[in-house]
């Protein structure tokens, strides 16, 4: 799966779960201010990403620093690459 495909998969999963307008899903979109997610949504978002990509990320410290959609893209791409390298 290419990085572009990963990004599309993330956006589709989040748009479906949180009923987001795909046009508003820009990498620089702030999760709270622009996409109007709340702290509980971030917990749900982690569950959605785990289900979509089949990895466990809820204990990752890095999740706490995620602010934008682009941060999510970068985080998931990095996790995918790490997973491929270790397997």
């Amino acid at each position, binding site marked *: 799966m290419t990085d572009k495909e990963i990004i599309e998969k993330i956006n589709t999963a989040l748009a479906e*779960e*949180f*009923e*987001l307008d795909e046009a508003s899903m820009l990498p620089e979109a702030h999760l709270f201010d622009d996409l*109007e997610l*709340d*702290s*509980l*949504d971030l*917990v*749900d978002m982690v*569950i959605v990403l785990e*289900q979509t990509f089949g990895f466990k990320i809820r204990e990752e410290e890095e999740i706490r620093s995620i602010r934008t959609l682009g941060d999510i893209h970068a985080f998931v791409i990095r996790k995918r690459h790490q997973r491929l390298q270790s397997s």
Partner: protein
Amino acid sequence: MWTCFLMTLTVYPLLSLWTLGSMAVFPAAFFLFKFGTRWSTERIVRFFIWIYGRGWIALVSPFVRFSRKGLEKAQSIQPVILVVNHLSFFDTYCMALLPFYNVAVAIRSWPFRMYWYAPFMRMANYLDVETSGWDGVSLQAKKILERGGNVLFFPEGHRSRNGALGRFYSGAFLLAVETGRPVIPMVISGTDVLLPPGRRRLHPARIRLEALPPVEPRRFSGPTAHIQLKKAVREAIGRRLAEIRTER
């Protein structure tokens, strides 16, 4: 048009008078109730808020036809978590259509900035979901449910701008999963005609508040239980809202 004009010209002043009168009477009535019933402060204030809402219903009733359906079921299984779609500022007033009064409403911060209502909302232990943080809201809500009170959420978080059902936030559903208390989905319609967001002029309307069958959180399991519950409740409210609009 003349009816709208007459309604706006009469309802707002009468509502102001009703509000001022209620505030003037409240201290004496509160102490009478406190010593007469030994109820908790939050319970007494919720009762008075419910009476105030009933007064508002009486004020607007020459222009607004109210109907309600299915609310008795919720009464029989209290305490419950009530969730209702959000169309207008006056939705909270319409909660006086409920056949019970012991309800704490979970709302955003801005209503707490209405200085004439804020002291009563705080005494009634209303939940500020925006500034308290989820841990604080959850703890507060659980205590309310333990004491026999009901908690009401507008899961869309804000009023719909186009009448369509918005996306739901998870708080109410996580609370239901954590406490095991049933969720009562409720559908309100007509308040968007009475006073849609961004308008000041009132319009005659037919307001309907309907409770749908309770949804038990134990039907759902696993880490996504609250998400599944949220989807089930949203689907039920959306379906009924669409039916009601077709019936109009």
